[in-house]
């Protein structure tokens, strides 16, 4: 069954059109990467899917219900959204951040906080304050905060962009693997990671949907080169892919 459906999405701000009338259907269990050059509308699409961006036209359905009609609290429990940048204004501890994240659920199993702490390897960090955490630790805390209520849908906006390669790999793999039993839609900057870890890839450019295909098929598609304005050398690297760009 489709978990999230975008129908004829259109988003315009002033004179500029950010998303130009396209539709997408997401299953309840799959992992999808969204790629595209700068300004393609990736973040706008993600916010529209999360129900936090006002639509100019079209609608988003969560299951059978119109997302715009859903009470904000219910939406927050059903859709986990990982922003591109996150910096709390107060220097909360890891345990406190998880508590705030858990607070948005109407009810949680008693061991939800414990489970999240274990799943994201935060044991021993509970009392540490945000300002003292490394980039990799921060990424795990953020993920734990968003996922502590175990939302059926996860939307993540390039959360790995500022991480070093090992932590980026860990994070993107975690996000992709969540597609095994949930829906996980991730804006990915690193094309190698997008094509290596995700089964399905959505390609955007200038607010338009260029392609929405299986990763294995899109990797060979010449539209990829066209959209990014380069010529890619496609190298098979172990289980994944390496794309080398030339002009």
């Amino acid at each position, binding site marked *: 069954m489709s978990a999230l459906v975008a129908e004829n999405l259109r988003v315009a701000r002033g004179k500029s059109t950010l998303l130009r009338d396209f539709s997408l259907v997401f299953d309840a269990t799959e992992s999808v990467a969204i790629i595209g050059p700068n300004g393609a509308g990736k973040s706008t699409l993600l916010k529209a899917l999360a129900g936090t961006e006002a639509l100019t036209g079209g609608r988003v359905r969560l299951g059978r219900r119109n997302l715009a009609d859903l009470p*904000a609290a219910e939406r927050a429990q059903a859709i986990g959204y990982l922003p591109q940048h996150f*910096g709390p*204004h*107060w220097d*909360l501890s890891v345990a406190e951040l998880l508590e*705030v994240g858990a*607070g948005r659920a109407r009810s949680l199993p008693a061991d939800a906080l414990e489970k999240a702490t274990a799943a994201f390897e935060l044991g021993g960090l509970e009392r540490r304050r945000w300002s003292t955490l490394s980039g990799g630790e921060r990424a795990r805390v953020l993920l734990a905060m968003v996922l502590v209520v175990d939302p059926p849908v996860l939307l993540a906006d390039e959360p790995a962009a500022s991480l070093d390669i090992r932590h980026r790999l860990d994070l993107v793999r975690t996000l992709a693997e969540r597609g095994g039993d949930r829906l996980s839609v991730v804006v990915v900057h690193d094309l190698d990671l997008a094509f290596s870890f995700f089964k399905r890839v959505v390609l955007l450019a200038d607010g338009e949907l260029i392609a929405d295909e299986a990763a294995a098929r899109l990797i060979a598609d010449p539209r990829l080169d066209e959209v990014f304005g380069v010529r890619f050398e496609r190298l098979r690297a172990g289980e994944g892919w390496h794309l080398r760009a030339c002009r």
Partner: protein
Amino acid sequence: MRVWLGLAAILLLALVVAACAGHAWASPADLWRALAGDAALRSRLLVEWRLPRVVAAAFVGALLGLGGTIYQGVFRNPLAEPYLLGSAGGAALGATVALLVPLALPQSWLLPLLAFAGAWGATLLVIGISRVAGAVDAAGLLLAGVAVAAILGALRSFLMLALSDETVSLQVVLSWVLGGIQTPTWALIAGGCVGLSLGLARRLDVLGLGEAMAIAFGLEVRRFVMLAVLAGSVIVAAAVAYGGLVAFVGLAAPHVARWLVGPLHRPLLPASALVGAIVVVLADAIARSALPPAEIPLGLVTAVAGGPFFIVLLARRLRS
């Protein structure tokens, strides 16, 4: 738990010290006798005049602590404070109008009502100015607040010059504006304000994660900010209507409380209230006893103590 017991013990101690302090000092034994129902004039004065004022100081301090915490939480800015953001100045202007302008309603109604209108209006004005100017950061908000506070202060001085004559004593308004605790009948108000602010606690925490995250976590940010500013204005207005303009307690109390119980608002709000109560009770004791037989305005005492605190915070923030 230890922190709470400690705070309660310090507050109790401060209350006892303040009840003893005055231009005629009483001993704790005098206080005990007076509370036990001694009929001597000295004991009756203690119970009927000094004790209510000490308790009122505690309530005003608690309200300032709550108000400061809410403002800092809403503006996500540790330098936000009712006094600096013009909200206390607005309340003072409203209260001055209530004291000086003969209007149809009884003054006991007008004072809190106009104080609230002033506090709310000033805060909305500051938010509006900083939004129009496109400055939502700490500096822009503070500058807008300082400007609005200056204008409101000038308006208040003008009103006092233009409207006071023999029938209304300028002295009364002046001493009230400089901060002087009035005798209270309103423990209920303080209780209501604590309840009101605790109702905001969880959403203040979510807002503190940043706007994008707060929206994703299901908070309707604009609506909540307006609601919290309204609640903050009610609390500030109550503090100003009964305690006059008391500077910097709303700034300092949340900081001290944050060191003690951390930044989550459910413990932070009551802790700030306790710290604010302790500070104002002690400051009021100094105000009453330092220069006998004169009484120093309470607002002067807290400004002398709180000003340097603000400068240190500002310097630390600018450096980081």
